[in-house]
């Protein structure tokens, strides 16, 4: 059952990025980001968080930009667990596009074919 995260949660989530990154840096180190995600998504549950972290460690291995960070919450909020309402033309950050590819290629999610 997916509930919608509160506005407060969103504020905290976005603040977490600013707070956790190194001063003077634009992006957040991957290790730190993963730690923060584990924490935050314990509060408001997103079942794909572990896959997301695994994917990043496997394929990305670089810092996380602010845009990617904030858009991830949007993604977790709006896109269902079968990814049936994910739109390739939806202007998602490319990392998220690659994550969707990763999920489908590895059979983690079976996207309904339409």
């Amino acid at each position, binding site marked *: 059952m997916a509930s919608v995260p509160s506005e407060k949660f969103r504020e905290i989530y976005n603040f977490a990025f600013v707070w956790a990154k190194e001063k003077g840096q*634009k*992006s957040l180190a991957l290790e730190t980001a993963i730690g923060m995600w584990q924490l935050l998504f314990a509060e408001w549950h997103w079942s794909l968080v572990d896959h997301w972290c695994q994917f990043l460690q496997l394929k990305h291995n670089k810092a996380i*930009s*602010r*845009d*990617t960070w904030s*858009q991830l919450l*949007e993604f977790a909020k709006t896109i269902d667990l079968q990814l049936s309402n994910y739109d390739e*033309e*939806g*202007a998602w*950050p*490319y990392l998220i*596009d690659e994550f969707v590819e990763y999920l489908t290629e590895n059979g983690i999610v079976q996207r309904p074919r339409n």
Partner: protein
Amino acid sequence: MSAQKRRTFKIEAFKHRVEIDPKYAERTWKVLEHAIHEIYNHNASGLSFEELYRNAYNMVLHKYGEKLYSGLVTTMTGHLKEIAKSIEDAQGSLFLEELDRKWGEHNKALQMIRDIMMYMDRTFVPSSGRTPVHDLGLNLWRDNIIHSSKIQSRLLDTLLDLIHRERKGEVINRGLMRNITKMLMDLGPVYQEDFEKPFLEVSASFYSGESQQLIECCDCGEYLRKAEKRLSEETERVSHYLDSASEVKITSVVEGEMIANHMQRLVHMENSGLVNMLVDDKYEDLARMYSLFRRVTDGLSTIRDVMTAHLRETGRQLVSDPEKLKDPVDFVQHLLDEKDKYDMIISKSFNNDKTFQNALNSSFEYFINLNNRSPEFISLYVDDKLRKGLKGVTEEDVEVVLDKVMMLFRYLQEKDVFEKYYKQHLAKRLLSGKTVSDDVERSMIVKLKTECGYQFTSKLEGMFTDMKTSVDTLQGFYASQHAEIGDGPTLAVQVLTTGSWPTQPSPPCNLPPEIIGICEKFRTYYLGTHTGRRLTWQTNMGTADIKATFGKGQKHELNVSTYQMCILMLFNSAERLSYKEIEQATEIPASDLKRCLQSLACVKGKNVLRKEPMSKDIAEDDAFYFNDKFTSKFIKVKIGTVAAQKESEPEKQETRQRVEEDRKPQIEAAIVRIMKSRRVLDHNTIVTEVTSQLQSRFLPNPVVIKKRIESLIEREFLERDKADRKLYRYLA
């Protein structure tokens, strides 16, 4: 007349009625009736026109018009029935002749009758709404002759039979046919209803049968020839004995049966269809196909589609065939030949049809870009043409070829890749002094500038400038040295501006002491006149001419690269050198060193060095000796490899990487330009706009565009809209 009142002059009719005796009317009619008989019996010469006219006139005047008219109808009908019988009795070919003759006679008779009845025609007929005499005569002919049960179908069958026989090759009486059809035309809709409609139906089934037969036994070219012949026959037939309005109807029947119904089968006929005609340059057959298919719906698009599919397939094969890709110059020549071939076909056979030219262009664009080495290969082809030493090629010839190459260039989607290679190849040409002529080089640059704009060529022009300036610099250098140079080596220098030239600067190797002196003199001279600059010798790009004397005293002049010169000069003071020793002494990078040693020691006819062991590859523990026993029939031996070549796989990857890197700022610049003017845009629109802005240089990858957008967001040039995450905003 009284002076007071003016009155109009009046004539008054008789106050009593003047009556004609009905017997008089009957008598008058009999005279006329007799006259009509005489006319039909060819005895008209004994009649008085004036008397008959007066009689008819009197009848009408005395209100006996009705009697006159109906008498006329009866009399004429009676005669026509007799005429019908005589026509029916005619045997075989006499049938039509009799019909024709009787028709002629009837018309003559009708003319005379009409002249006699003219007063009735002008007064009684209109006022009573009757058919005028001439038309009456035609109608009666139609009803009593043409539509007579014994004549109607016989007439049609006879006509159709004659046409059928003529189609089969017999000669028929065309004059007679013309008269008959003209008769039918004169009778109003009779021609269309009674003749033309069945004629077209019968023709359709005739041609349907014929086309079935022909398509089984003829090849495509033959079939089309026969169809064309039939069409012109039918047109000729119409001009000789049918109504001209029938032409378009009958030709469309033939076109439908012979062409439209068999289009696919003809075009795809094995061994003789469209593809075979194209391959074998059968201009006449192709022209015929074009002009025939043009007449039917979708005819031309059928030809065009098959041609396009064939072109794309052969093109695709050409650009994926490893055999054909071995030699880039050959490969491009094949492309040019193919283009020439189809240009010729379109001009000779397809009427320079623009839609076909477009199909040709789109096909070429399709398959040229299937191979991502096309830009490199086209540049190599141009390089080959622009090098000195092409035997028998005049400057005009080269110009013609360059124009054709520009056509291929226009098809490239990755024009920026071409630019990169062109620069590399141009640099090599300029530095080795191997261009056909400066004018031709510049003309090529102008062509590129016209296609792609100023930025494309500005750096290229920088290279030419450097070459020119270097000549002046060198002159100045030698002037300043006076007699100090003497016997030493002669130095030629090109001073290159970094940034204009494509090669990456590399650290210089160790130059032999014989050279260092003069090189330093030049450096001093140059820096003396150009303060604030830095000079670095590009030892990976130079050449040297060395005089060498071998074992038996034979002297040769060796043309080598600078690296090779450094290696060879070492052997002036050592008999034997190991690979390691050479490497240490010269400090030439390993991969280059191996290549140089290979060309000095392992190539037949150029082996001025001897290697132990004699293997083909250079190993780190090889030893090298000066090859005393070297022989060559040429005094001047060229060993250096400075000519442009197809890149090796790793080089190719490197170049591609650099191209991708170069594209990123271009994409970003386009995004910023667009967002600056539009302020707020959704993602897809940005991608479309960027693609359209950059398409004259390359086709940007949408994923790369997305990454650039994200990079711009991170650097705070753009932001996402707070309400709609699919929109981006420009941050001033």
